[in-house]
């Protein structure tokens, strides 16, 4: 069964450094998402992406964040200058249709630790 994959599984970085988190969505899906979960808190929506542009974003998704689908298979989340509070589990998801209740398929997550 197709799955969303994410790399790396764990990323450790120094505060102020740039990180890129990578995701490979399910191949025939059209909508892509990033969520994050700070330890002990809720899974929070960051951004959704469709047709090569951002379709929605939350207040968390500020100018330090960007997303890209560079090659038609990968979907990346970049954090330009990481802060301590960016430490979290980051989940990528994809879905085949946006405006229905269709399931979002989630990846296993990347644990980002900012030191």
């Amino acid at each position, binding site marked *: 069964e197709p*799955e*969303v994959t994410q790399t790396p599984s764990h990323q450790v970085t120094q505060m102020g450094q740039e990180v890129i988190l990578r995701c490979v969505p399910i191949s025939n899906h059209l*909508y892509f*998402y990033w*969520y994050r979960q700070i330890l*002990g*808190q*809720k*899974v*929070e*929506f960051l951004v*959704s992406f469709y047709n090569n542009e951002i*379709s*929605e974003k*939350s207040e968390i998704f500020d100018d330090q964040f960007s997303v890209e689908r560079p090659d038609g298979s990968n979907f990346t989340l970049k954090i330009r200058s990481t802060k301590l509070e960016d430490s979290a589990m980051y*989940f990528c998801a994809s*879905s085949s249709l*946006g*405006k229905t*209740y269709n*399931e*979002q*398929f*989630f*990846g*296993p*997550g990347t644990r980002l630790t900012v030191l």
Partner: protein
Amino acid sequence: AQTVTQSQPEMSVQEAETVTLSCTYDTSESDYYLFWYKQPPSRQMILVIRQEAYKQQNATENRFSVNFQKAAKSFSLKISDSQLGDAAMYFCAYRSASGGNQFYFGTGTSLTVIP
């Protein structure tokens, strides 16, 4: 904004017994979708069951069923004949039918199955 609350951070159940996980939500919308996702340790979230708000009948998937009380804004998950493989973090999620595609998650309930 919609909020989802899971008031049980941890639950345990004896193998073969039944357990109910609680979820409440707050919304002013009349049409929406509700989901339960399961996340085994170090694995991705997978969909367990979903419910459309306009349907009065409670959704059922094999040993998993929900008790959807729309007026009370309650959406509990019942797991019957619990198995060791049911041990996981369970997340309740909400998605608007008319708004954006983002999911709103609760903080999760960690379920332990005791042999």
